[in-house]
């Protein structure tokens, strides 16, 4: 074989170099993918790592003597009156009885701090309120331990730090260990996290009200955004004449999809709250703001789904004497359905994760009750996460991460479903 310009030494050398460049380019691509995956892994591991322990919590099972002399000195059995009684004393007595040798006031205080004061008193209070005949009896119930003890036993508060540097004293550690040995303190599934509304005390705080609030916001947002999004897409794609005005609408929608979400918060604040005078912190307003935020996403998804339907389908329907509206609604829309659904799910996932606009319309309220309707004050899961992440006690970090895990599981499920749906759609085409 003769040596040509392509088989010369120089050319081969150049080829080798070119192959090297090729390889490096490929590696850069691989590195970029790995970087993104590593970031994802770090994020997930860091959150799951701090959060998973919150799904279990330390509880104390103890006897509480509901003595009449403390709760009902006047012998009343009126539940309303019993509700205001001094349950703290009952809990204190129980705690003191665990270590009868403790006598000094300061030590007694430290001992009492092992149990969740608020949690225990309220649990007993509700029991007695429901069944006043319990007064005078002794009940054995399980109440949460205080957040400090919980953190200690989970190992977040290190025993080897200097005593002055930690909020739990050596004496308290000894008590906690003893109670654990006695089987009084046990780690159990943390039902509180899922069943309770928000609380000032980490050991009593739950995401129930925030979850319900989020669901309400999503329902309102969906009921508004879905018809608006799909309707305007159908109009723009199927019925709108091509003129300046429809161009304007189109630019508008595309732009709205990319407007920072906080601007929608400002809109909600200025229009819904200040101008229309709607109440602050209600899911209805939150849902309306988020509906405006996500309907462009739905519109854009719907339009691309509609454009993906072969025009011959509409021609076929028209040639049979279907009206344009009939052809669109009966033939085209059902075919675009999965695409519209995908877009809607992604839009709703977007709405579910949104925080900033809700801050603007006062959805940062502390709500002691799970809301019953869209006009009752509520908060949303991301906002709850934001509030908790800002709280001082160490136990909050764990609970914040746990709340994030819940939110992420829901979001990843939603997005995953949307992606799955889209992939199926692409395969079908």
């Amino acid at each position, binding site marked *: 074989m003769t040596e040509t310009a392509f088989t010369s030494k120089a050319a081969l050398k150049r080829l080798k170099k070119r192959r090297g460049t090729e390889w490096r380019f490929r590696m850069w691509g691989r590195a970029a993918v790995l970087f993104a995956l590593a970031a994802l892994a770090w994020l997930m591991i860091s959150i799951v790592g701090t959060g998973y322990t919150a799904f279990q919590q330390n509880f104390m099972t103890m006897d509480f003597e509901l003595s009449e002399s403390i709760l009902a000195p006047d012998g009343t059995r009126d539940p309303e009156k019993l509700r205001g009684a001094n349950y703290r004393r009952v809990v204190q007595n129980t705690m003191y009885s665990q270590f009868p040798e403790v006598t000094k006031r300061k030590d007694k205080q430290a001992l009492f701090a092992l149990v969740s004061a608020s949690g225990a008193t309220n649990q007993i209070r509700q029991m007695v309120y429901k069944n006043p005949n319990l007064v005078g009896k002794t009940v054995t119930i399980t109440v949460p331990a205080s957040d400090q003890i919980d953190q200690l036993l989970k190992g977040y508060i290190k025993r080897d730090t200097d005593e002055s540097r930690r909020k739990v004293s050596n004496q308290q550690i000894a008590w906690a260990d003893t109670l654990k040995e006695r089987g009084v303190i046990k780690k159990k599934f943390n039902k509180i996290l899922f069943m309770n509304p928000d609380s000032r005390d980490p050991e009593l705080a739950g995401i129930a009200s925030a979850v319900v609030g989020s669901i309400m916001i999503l329902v309102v947002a969906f009921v508004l955004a879905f018809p608006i999004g799909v309707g305007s897409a159908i109009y723009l794609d199927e019925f709108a004449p091509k003129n300046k005005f429809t161009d304007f609408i189109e630019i508008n929608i595309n732009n709205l999809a990319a407007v920072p979400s906080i601007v929608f918060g400002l809109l909600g604040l200025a229009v819904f709250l200040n101008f229309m005078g709607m109440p602050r912190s209600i899911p209805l307003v939150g849902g309306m703001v988020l509906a405006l935020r996500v309907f462009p996403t739905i519109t854009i998804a719907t339009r691309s789904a509609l454009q993906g339907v072969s025009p011959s*389908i*509409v021609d*076929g*329907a028209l*040639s*049979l*004497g*279907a009206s344009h509206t*009939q052809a669109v609604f*009966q033939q085209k829309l059902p075919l675009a359905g999965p695409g519209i659904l995908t877009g809607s799910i992604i839009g709703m996932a977007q709405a579910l994760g949104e925080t900033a606009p809700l801050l603007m319309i006062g959805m940062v309220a502390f709500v002691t009750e799970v809301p019953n309707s869209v006009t009752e004050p509520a908060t949303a899961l991301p906002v709850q996460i934001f509030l908790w992440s800002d709280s001082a006690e160490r136990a909050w970090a764990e609970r914040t991460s746990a709340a994030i895990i819940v939110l992420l599981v829901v979001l990843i499920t939603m997005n995953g479903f949307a992606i799955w749906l889209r992939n199926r759609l692409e395969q079908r085409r």
Partner: protein
Amino acid sequence: MTDTINTKFTCRDVRVHYGDFEALHGIDIDIPDRGVTAFIGPSGCGKSTFLRTFNRMNDTIDGCRVSGKIHMDGQDIYDPNLDPVLLRAQVGMVFQKPNPFPKSIYDNVAYGPRIHGLTSSKAELDALVEKSLRRAGLWEEVKDRLKLSGTGLSGGQQQRLVIARAIAVSPEVILMDEPASALDPIATAKLEALIEELKERYCIIIVTHSMAQAARVSDKTAFFYMGDLIEFDDTDKIFTNPGNTRTQDYITGRTG
């Protein structure tokens, strides 16, 4: 064909514009009531555009304007008061690529009768579906799988399904826009046989690229060139003794 045949469509000075572009430059033609009329001509000559004026499918294209007069049985089909939807119920259409709806075979055929409320009971509808499928020569092939999707049929079957779908609305006219171009020779033969059968009942207008097909199936042939109707006559005459040199050139393969 005898001379007593009525005229179905009367067209006078039909012009079609896409925006500023004039695609048809004033067509005058009378289409007979029964039988097959074929439109032939090179690509872009306007034959498909002209076909789509008969059921006003051009209305769906943005920027498309039709002027001139087209009368069907004496009725102006471009009368602003006429609902194109009702026109299309009477003028069925079959497209180049078979376009069954991604629904069951049954639903495909039943769609038209349903939107027009042609039947009042399930049994009646069943009967109509069967009749249409039989007439389209598809019944024997699909009677056991009416619930299966229409998109699962072969190309030729799909095209016959589309014809069955069109017949189900009881149209008077069937427009066919190169119906065999996506089909293999066997399916084409079946389709042509079907056209042969259908022309007894319907006015069929067919646009075709295949000269042979036009010669085989049509009774009359119109030759279009660059947006003009060059010649319109009995098929036999066009193919044996065309009156125009351009027609002659096209038929003998010198242009197109």
